[in-house]
């Protein structure tokens, strides 16, 4: 069986990403790869799409939604390469026939580059998610805390917050409405200091509630403690947020 070409690999991986997105109602727009010639089968754009899907899957899981990923694809070996078949068709990857020629280049050297963008590089926003159903989200700080496990005490200062949030954030930033919307509705947005209410990544889930800002399509920037990385969040009229991925 000849070694698979990068473009073939890329197509299979892209198809899997699309299936994951479709199965879980994740907004996902991708495009045909314009690259010509050999490649490893992945690139920074593909890596960013994968990271976005991972975050969205985790977000849905944290909200108690059913997530379907396992077994969505079966990769089957055929003459000249591999194909993606619908789950249940094809067969597993038992090797048969002649082995790929052994040589010292049989092992790819190290992980493909572009796993994560360099510090300071913005990831293109992919499929901004707007949560309309606020009943799925707790509306108070306490409810946020009980919804997500392992909640540390509320940070007192931005410095403390910075110490909790890693320098390279691996998850979405989301704002949850605070309990008393009416009290804050009349306040000038510029005079309201908002703090990070919730963030999550695979191995760290931190949730705490603070202020609520109600604004119509207002964007704002926040400094994340000592890391000084910025995220941009927009708000809808319902007080919830449009999430933006940042790394």
């Amino acid at each position, binding site marked *: 069986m000849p070694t698979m070409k990068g473009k073939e690999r890329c197509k299979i991986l892209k198809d899997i990403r699309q299936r994951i997105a479709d199965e879980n109602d994740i907004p996902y727009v991708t495009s045909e790869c314009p690259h010509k010639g050999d490649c*490893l089968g992945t690139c920074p754009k593909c890596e960013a799409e*994968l990271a976005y899907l991972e975050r969205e899957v985790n977000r849905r899981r944290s909200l108690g939604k059913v997530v379907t990923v*396992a077994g969505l694809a079966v990769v089957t070996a055929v003459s000249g390469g591999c194909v993606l078949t619908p789950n249940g068709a094809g067969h597993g990857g038992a090797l048969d026939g002649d082995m790929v020629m052994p040589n010292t280049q049989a092992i790819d050297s190290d992980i493909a580059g572009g796993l994560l963008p360099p510090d300071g590089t913005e990831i293109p926003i992919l499929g901004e998610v707007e949560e309309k159903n606020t009943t799925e989200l707790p509306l108070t700080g306490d409810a946020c805390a009980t919804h997500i496990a392992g909640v540390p005490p509320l940070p007192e200062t931005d410095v403390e917050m910075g110490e909790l949030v890693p320098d390279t954030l691996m998850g979405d930033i989301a704002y949850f409405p605070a309990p008393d919307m009416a009290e804050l509705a009349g306040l000038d947005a510029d005079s309201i200091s908002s703090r990070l209410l919730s963030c999550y990544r695979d191995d760290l889930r931190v949730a705490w509630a603070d202020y609520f800002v109600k604004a119509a399509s207002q964007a704002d920037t926040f400094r994340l403690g000592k890391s000084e990385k910025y995220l941009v969040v927009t708000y809808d009229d319902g007080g919830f947020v449009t999430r933006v991925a940042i790394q």
Partner: protein
Amino acid sequence: MSAAAKLAPIFAIARHRMNLDGVGIVTLVTFCGCPLRCRYCINPQSFDPKTKAMQLTPLELYDKVRVDNLYFLASGGGVTFGGGEPLLYPQFLKEFRSLCPDGWRLGVETSLNVPWEAVETAASCIDHFFIDGKDSNPAIYRAYTGQDNGRMLDNLKRLAALIPPERITVRIPLIPYYNTDEDRDRSVVLYESYGLTQFDRFTYKIKELA
């Protein structure tokens, strides 16, 4: 974590391998070090002292490979360990398993020519063993690898008794200038007597020897 499990020398991490090292999309992690010196070794850099290896803890390795979590889960794939000889690091494998999501399949590509305790530890945390049996004939095995195969055969017999046969695939290579199809048939008969059922017959294709 014990000092033995703390770090392992890894010289390559190859992502997005398909139907080469197990079912689905697999990341192959290759360790340095091997008790054998096979004449047509596919990865001689695994025992070359000049090879630059990454010294990684199980957590550091997990952090590197987890990027493909969705592909693993969607395709039934995961991480396969090779080398070199991955069963030189059984505690590392066990620790790594404890970090992985349940949906990841872990495999090893091994000669099985290691202490039994290492095999037993691996059996508790590895989903599938791909065992390169070379040849069951002791003379052929020694000529090709430079080592005896008594320990390997004993381990194979014990492993076959320990875990279901569907978790073991024994590779039966036709090794140019070392064995024949008749030798391979004899190996299969022996392995079948151990209760093994899954075999992968293939032919080493080698560059012309200088």
